[in-house]
């Protein structure tokens, strides 16, 4: 069975050229320079770019992830495999961009550290929209838990907080940024490979690519210091595990056909605080937890030392291992349009 089929680049180019000619005035100056306005999945526009967060010097890089079909999950004989990784099933993913690195405190601080009410006159519409997104309350203790701030990944924040950050960033930039679906995450991590790790099967090589229990010395590290995966994603394994958009369901894969690809699957989160998917393993994990197919679901033990009731919807207390990475769809799938976190202080 062919486990991975990437769209033919040549065919895509041709098709899009035709579409572009049909849809766009060829003299339009917008095309090419502004990726947003290019036709969906146009290869010319679907390339790496750097986003600057307006009103700051903070930048982050996005890398293009081509659309394609892959087999999600792991075979029963894969070393370290857990039951929730099967059965394997084919999945088709639309093209998107993904953050080259995990979101750092430098980026996240731009969101939550801005004082409420520090709104200026004559605000730009995008700033006004961004200000309308709710912001985290001040954390009770040290939100970095001593792991380091500059260049280090955000950690120990709730799924709700990660989603709200994306909503703020979307309003701020006028582009759709969100958490990756679990399928997008695994597809991007595999980068066309079918082995347990994108570099093969031997966990001994993990140290070249990832911070994990074997080399991290119990803390996170600055993002982007190890080798990337074949699609240019750094720390996709280890450092911090990464929130995905989906609700975690142990037997979720049993709901998919194994003879034809499912297009862009996602288990859309409801208002519950838990469980959600976290992928890629972290500084705290042994190699098996870092495999492309390894899944993990959050639970309330991740916030157990929050002594208040209701507990915070922004800050976890016992999950120094979880952070996130963002994606931007080339064309948003219908069932995720306008999606936002439903979690409130009253949520279970």
């Amino acid at each position: 069975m062919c486990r991975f089929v990437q769209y033919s680049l040549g065919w895509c180019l041709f098709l899009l050229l035709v579409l572009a000619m049909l849809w766009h005035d060829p003299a339009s100056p917008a095309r090419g320079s502004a990726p947003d306005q290019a036709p969906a999945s146009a290869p010319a526009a679907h390339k790496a770019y750097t986003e600057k967060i307006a009103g700051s010097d903070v930048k982050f890089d996005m890398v293009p992830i081509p659309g394609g079909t892959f087999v999600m999950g792991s075979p029963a004989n894969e070393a370290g495999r857990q039951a929730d990784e099967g059965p394997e099933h084919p999945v088709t993913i639309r093209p998107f961009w993904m953050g080259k690195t995990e979101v750092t405190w430098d980026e996240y601080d731009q969101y939550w550290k801005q004082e409420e009410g520090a709104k200026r006159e004559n605000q730009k519409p995008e700033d006004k929209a961004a200000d309308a997104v709710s912001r985290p309350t001040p954390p009770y203790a040290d939100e970095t838990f001593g792991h380091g701030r500059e260049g280090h990944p955000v950690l120990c924040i709730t799924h709700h907080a990660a989603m709200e950050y994306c909503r703020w960033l979307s309003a701020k930039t006028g582009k759709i940024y969100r958490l990756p679906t679990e399928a997008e995450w695994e597809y991007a991590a595999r980068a066309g490979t079918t082995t347990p790790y994108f570099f093969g099967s031997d966990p001994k090589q993990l140290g070249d690519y990832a911070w994990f229990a074997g080399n991290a010395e119990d803390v996170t590290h600055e993002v982007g210091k190890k080798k990337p995966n074949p699609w240019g994603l750094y720390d996709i394994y280890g450092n911090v595990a990464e929130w995905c958009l989906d609700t975690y369901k142990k037997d979720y894969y049993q709901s998919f056909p194994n003879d034809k690809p499912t297009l862009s699957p996602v288990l859309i989160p409801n208002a519950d605080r838990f469980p959600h998917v976290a992928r890629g393993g972290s500084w705290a994990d042994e190699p098996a937890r870092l495999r492309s197919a390894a899944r993990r679901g959050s639970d309330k033990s991740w916030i157990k030392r929050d002594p208040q009731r209701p507990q915070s919807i922004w800050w976890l207390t016992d999950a120094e291992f979880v952070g996130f990475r963002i994606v931007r769809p080339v064309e948003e799938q219908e069932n995720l349009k306008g999606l936002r976190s439903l979690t409130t202080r009253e949520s279970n």
Partner: protein
Amino acid sequence: MTREHAEGSQTTRREFLKTTAVAGTALAANMSLLTNVHAAGSDTIKVGLVGCGGRGSGAVDNVLHSAPNVEIVAIGDAFKFRTDDLRRQLQKLVNKEEVKKLGNRVNLPEERCFAGIDAYEKVIHSDANYIILATTPGFRPTHLQAAVAAGKHIFTEKPVGVDGPGIRKVLAAYEEAQKRKNLCIVAGTQRRHEAGYLETMKRIHGGEIGDITAMRCYWNGQGIWFRDRSELSKHGIPDSDLAYQIHNWYHFLWTCGDHIVEQHVHNLDVCNWALGKHPVKAVGMGSRIARPVGNPREVGNIFDNFAIDFEYDNGVHMLSMCRQIRGCESNVSEALVGTKGTSRPDQYSVNGQRVAIKGRGRTVDPYVQEHTDLIECIRSGKPINELKTVAESTLTAILGREAAYTGKLVTWDQVLHSKEDTMPERLSWEMSLPVAPVPVPGKTRLS
């Protein structure tokens, strides 16, 4: 005599805030013979909660998960919206699988949900044999005295007071509790019930870093909520100084004790625990830089940063910092230097090695464990009384605060015997409650 500005203006705190012994202590003492109940063996732990805010609500959740045969029988708060909210939360909580499995219950008819300034007395004198004290810290000494006098087992939140006179009450309550056989008291300095800290301390006390020669501890964070006066009406509370100051309690000295007392007490407690004693003097500095500006009656009168050098009777120094300013470096930690090595208790690390798992979920919840430990003591008839250590750690924080407020070298005995009673006299919703100005080091005095 009281804290006053050296220039002898009218700004003494005495005029704002006078000593009081809130009524009820005598009543409590009379009731004690009737209500001196201890739950032995598998007897039901009947919980009465005083203070139904976020922490109190958390504490009843914790206790319902801590041991079998626990029943919530009474709750009280200054505000009715708090008891109403908690009652609703409890209905949900009691249906949780883990709570049901332990056979734990909520038995809270409307008539045992008390609201008002005297709600604490009603809870303490209810059927409850296990009182949780979780109001704002300023009230704690009064509540502790009343609960001990009534012979009830107590879980008390930290800190246990905000000034010298309050701590003297707590120490008296400690002595009183020691005289009563089988009375069990645990304090919410939960690090002392946290597996990682316990393992770290076992090694420190076992000599793995030798004799401690220096310590430092921080609680540098990003700030805290501020509840605007206008929020009262949202909760259906008539506007008054007292209601506002209790609702926005973090920002007033008499309710909170300042953030060095309310928050940093945890780290100071860890250092005292490591050394097995409390400091004897302190010098330090602090100020109010980034909090809201205005009339203290509206914006409060606490500082937002302290840096204190404490000294113990064996010459060991502890450097402490605490800050609540958004945008600054965060750091909540303790570090110890010994003759043979070092330790970071907050990292559960001794000589560079982790001695317990940290930050990965799935370990025991110390906020549940402190109730498990307390209930275990009650049921096995093995008394425990943490009031003295938590009183000393609270007074350590007060010592640091007074060193910064006055700008002078301040001793343990000075704060312990201080007449600086911040509790307003004869509390009533109608009273006018002016707030003392923000202290000015070099001018403000401790009496």
